[in-house]
């Protein structure tokens, strides 16, 4: 073995051990766990565990709460994801515009929610959404608009959580879009102007196509993040009203760590894995077609 590969082995060892033992092994074990009936009794004595093949998955597909969580999670991602992309692209275009002064200042302001603690701001938004004392409804009342019970109304609760998620997350994707915008060569815009393209046409035919790879990256990152939604409903609604904000990860947490049905919960987690894998593949396919 050369001195170089000996050194490499030494330098890689700590990270490899930690990632191997505390990440990759549990992920593989998670799949194995999903094929067993591991529960509270197994927690006391492992010998109570039996292999049940795909029984957990069959039970899952037959349970209505799973489908509710599945649909809620997809709704959150399919509405919240595109909304985040649109808001962050708009913010990036504004901050990056040639006429904009104090670019760094606005960038920092828009980015600030990203670094805040999700649990803390979820609590803040819970009070902002309060039907009577919340600042949102007080502002709406002042404008003589309807003042719904945002988190108490089954039709609005998830939407209210989506608004929080967009507020919290758009600064991150904005930064990625700004990087993408800055990588577009200025000559392309000049050429478009010479050809008589207006602002909108420049955006449509230069900016959007040139941002192609950025859209893919942003889409995948946002999808991966959004499908894992947990803390917002945990803090704000506990899954209510009428289970309208129960999510896949929340179901996994409840089943696995409240009721200790760990085999069943592992099958929920694995579905999440498939969902995220599918979202990534779909994004890539869509990008290829363009």
């Amino acid at each position, binding site marked *: 073995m050369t001195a170089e590969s000996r*050194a490499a082995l030494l330098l*890689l060892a700590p990270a490899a051990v930690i990632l191997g*033992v505390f*990440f990759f092994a549990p992920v593989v074990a998670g799949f194995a766990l999903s094929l067993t009936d591991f529960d509270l009794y197994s927690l006391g004595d492992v010998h109570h565990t039996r292999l049940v093949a795909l029984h957990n998955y069959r039970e899952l597909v037959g349970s209505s709460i799973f489908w509710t969580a599945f649909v809620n999670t997809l709704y959150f991602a399919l509405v919240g994801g595109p909304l985040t992309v649109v808001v962050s692209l708009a913010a990036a275009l504004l901050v990056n515009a040639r006429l904009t002064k104090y670019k760094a200042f606005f960038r920092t302001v828009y980015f600030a929610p990203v670094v805040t*603690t999700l649990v803390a701001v979820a*609590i803040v938004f819970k*009070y902002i959404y309060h039907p009577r004392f919340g600042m949102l409804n007080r502002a709406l009342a002042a404008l003589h608009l309807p003042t719904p019970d945002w988190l108490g109304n089954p039709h609005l609760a998830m939407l209210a959580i989506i608004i929080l998620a967009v507020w919290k997350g758009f600064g991150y994707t904005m930064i990625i879009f700004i990087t993408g915008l800055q990588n577009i060569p200025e000559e392309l815009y000049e050429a478009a102007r010479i050809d008589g393209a207006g602002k909108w046409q420049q955006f449509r035919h230069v900016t959007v196509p040139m941002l192609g790879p950025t859209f893919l990256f942003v889409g995948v990152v946002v999808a991966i993040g959004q499908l894992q939604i947990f803390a917002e409903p945990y803090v704000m609604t506990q899954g209510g009203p009428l289970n309208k904000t129960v999510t896949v990860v929340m179901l996994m947490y409840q089943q696995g760590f409240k009721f200790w049905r760990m085999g069943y919960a592992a099958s929920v987690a694995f579905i999440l894995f498939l969902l995220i894998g599918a979202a990534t593949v779909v994004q890539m396919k869509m990008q290829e077609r363009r």
Partner: protein
Amino acid sequence: MSRRLESAILHGVLIAGGVITLFPLFWMLSASFMHSGEAATFPPRLLPQAPTLDQYRQLFVRLNLGRAFFSSAVVASIVTISSVLFGSMAGYAFAKLRFGGRDRLFGLLLTAVVIPPQVGMLPLFLLMKKLHLVNSYWGAIVPSMATMFGIFLVRQFMLSVPHDLLEAARLDGAGELRIYWSVVMPLARPILATLATFMFMSTWNDFMWPLIVLSDQAHYTLPVALANLSGEHVQDIELMMAGAVVTVLPVLALFVALQRYYIAGLMAGSVKG
């Protein structure tokens, strides 16, 4: 449209967006200095009538939130130090050292990026239980002591370190580990600062795994303690806002101070992602 008008509209929209973005944080801060019940009065108040530290006093004296603050600081600090050290070691090895199976191993590690951590959480909990690390700081710390993100970030940076520099050091008779520590590490300072900022903040804000692995209040980190508190004190708006401030302010301050590194890291991570 004249240039001046265009600029006025542009900045008007930017400022409006900024006000909307900062309002929740402003209101959180303002309400945290109000007396109990003041945030629920009619007509609404945007600023406290007579600012008070009552809510903070109650949090730290009666509800012992200082303990959770300490827990968060311990967990985030140890995770930061170790993930920067281990990430820099592995990142350097992947970028600059030649060894068999390097690219295949790196490719395998990269798949970790699309695997949601929740998939491994159930077995991880059982493993922690076996190791008697449930309900201890180490239980929250160990799984994050090395991260794929850190390895990737350092590797991207190290790729730009010239090979000649390393060869020169080798010709001078420096050993491989010595080159890593004395030649490469000083060069990598900016990216290490980026990684440290990133890791500290994400660990400080982390919720789900600490919620699972820390089951008794004595070890709760701030987000877990806060979520727990919010269940018991639903009506105490001002108190909860003070709790949110205590949780958010340290990371927000750190971000404002170190944003250069933080945003640079995001951009580096995205360009070649």
